[in-house]
């Protein structure tokens, strides 16, 4: 039987699209050039974050977190989802006021969060550096294992009839004279279809080129340090990050860095986080690892005696305004885009899959689609040109 929809990319985003489409009774074929979760989705940390700017991201994150609650029940195996909450730390007294304003603005928009004094911090997390200015607790934040989530979404889609085709690389997309999708060409054969979803992460721009669309997504490298399993009481809250993390998102040059400590289900710590632009190069840079460790040590001195067992780098699919692209491809009928989630693709995968399925099955979208459109970039260029 021919598929109604071909999803390109077996990362957490593509697998979520396949899952939510299959749930609507759509016949899906997912193609992946390597194996499932062989791209960015195996390199992520584990944070389901709810307090990103701008407001559209906050909306996506809130909706997605609710979907995770349901997925943890629905999916065929454990995805290690837990409502851990997260703790943001302010290093210097000088940074307290702007942070306090941010927290108040998030509260005003309905996000549950509490400011914490340095005394509160010492009581809650006795192993943290004693001289921090304060922080905030975000009780709605959660944690999940991104690899298991990707595999479980694919398995669930398969159980509902989707075809999952690993080791199948898309080499071209055929369009009719009216610029309608008619087929997807792959290394394992041609697949006739009227609808394709481009969920190829940092490779999504190359897929866009196949139909003449410019998708402004580029790789943004991030280094991760994995430690040996540590005692459960080293940190009580399993996600602790420097409040300055949110500022590193906007950096455009050099290596932007911030402490980001997450303890996984298995007890290991994943220490982040850095951001730099270096093309598709995933080579680990020792000087970045050193600086990143020093940043994390500053907030959690108790790390000094803990052993590092592994380091690696992954590539975040960066979109220029840090908002994902969940959109139709303008001027190409049947071409949909789900990419550009940067450092929040694990968080936003469920809502992305749901929105794509709503678009394809002509249902009302859970979240407004206009701010997520590909068109916003051409409008922007137009405005720049007009001055």
């Amino acid at each position: 039987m021919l598929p109604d929809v071909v999803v390109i990319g077996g990362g957490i985003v593509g697998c979520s699209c396949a899952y939510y489409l299959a749930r609507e009774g759509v016949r899906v074929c997912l193609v992946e050039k390597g194996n499932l979760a062989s791209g960015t989705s195996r390199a992520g940390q584990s944070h389901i974050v709810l307090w990103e700017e701008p407001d559209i991201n906050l909306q996506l994150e809130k909706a997605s977190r609710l979907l995770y609650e349901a997925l943890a029940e629905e999916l065929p195996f454990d995805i290690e989802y837990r409502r851990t909450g997260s703790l943001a730390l302010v290093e210097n007294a000088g940074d307290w006021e702007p942070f306090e304003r941010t927290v108040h603005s998030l509260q005003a928009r309905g996000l549950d969060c509490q400011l914490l004094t340095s005394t509160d911090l010492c009581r809650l997390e006795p192993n943290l550096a004693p001289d921090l200015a304060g922080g905030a607790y975000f009780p709605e934040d959660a944690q999940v294992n991104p690899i298991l989530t990707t595999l479980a979404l694919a398995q669930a889609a398969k159980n509902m009839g989707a075809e999952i085709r690993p080791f199948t690389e898309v080499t071209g997309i055929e369009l009719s004279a009216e610029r309608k999708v008619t087929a997807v060409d792959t290394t394992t054969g041609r697949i006739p279809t009227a609808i394709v979803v481009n969920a190829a992460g940092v490779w999504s721009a190359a897929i866009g080129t196949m139909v003449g669309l410019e998708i402004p997504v580029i790789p943004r490298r991030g280094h991760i340090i994995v430690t040996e399993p540590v005692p459960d009481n080293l940190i009580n809250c399993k996600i602790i990050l420097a409040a300055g993390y949110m500022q590193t998102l906007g950096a455009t040059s050099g290596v932007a860095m911030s402490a980001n400590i997450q303890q996984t289900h298995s007890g290991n710590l994943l220490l982040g986080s850095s951001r730099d632009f270096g093309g598709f190069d995933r080579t680990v840079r020792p000087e970045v690892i050193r600086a990143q460790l020093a940043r994390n040590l500053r907030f959690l001195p108790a790390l000094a005696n803990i052993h590092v067992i592994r380091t690696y780098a992954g590539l975040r699919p960066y979109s220029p305004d840090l908002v994902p692209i969940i959109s139709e491809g303008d001027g190409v009928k049947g071409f949909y885009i789900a990419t550009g989630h940067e450092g929040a693709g694990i968080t936003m995968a469920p809502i992305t899959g749901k929105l794509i399925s709503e678009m394809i099955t002509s249902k009302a979208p859970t979240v407004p689609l206009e701010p997520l459109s590909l068109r916003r970039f051409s409008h922007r260029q137009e405005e720049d040109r007009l001055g």
Partner: protein
Amino acid sequence: MSLEPEDEVIICRCEEVSLKEILEAIAEGARTVNEVKMRTRAGMGLCQGKTCRRLVSQILAQQTGQPMGEIMPATFRPPVRPVPIGVLATGDDEG
């Protein structure tokens, strides 16, 4: 699948992953040492696969019929020996 006694053999000692779990991962589609690692945690422990990598490759070769040379080794990532963060961060490990 009937459980053979030898399936309980531990292949990855750091993470206590049994032969049975590795066979299941291959049955689910894992084709490389890395993919077995992602599904089972074999090779993710303290020794980072120094002990089990070879065994996992052999099991993969045997189950999938791929020649050993084609099975990608699990990526080796620094550090090769666990190093305390206090030492790494200050660069004292060099020399």
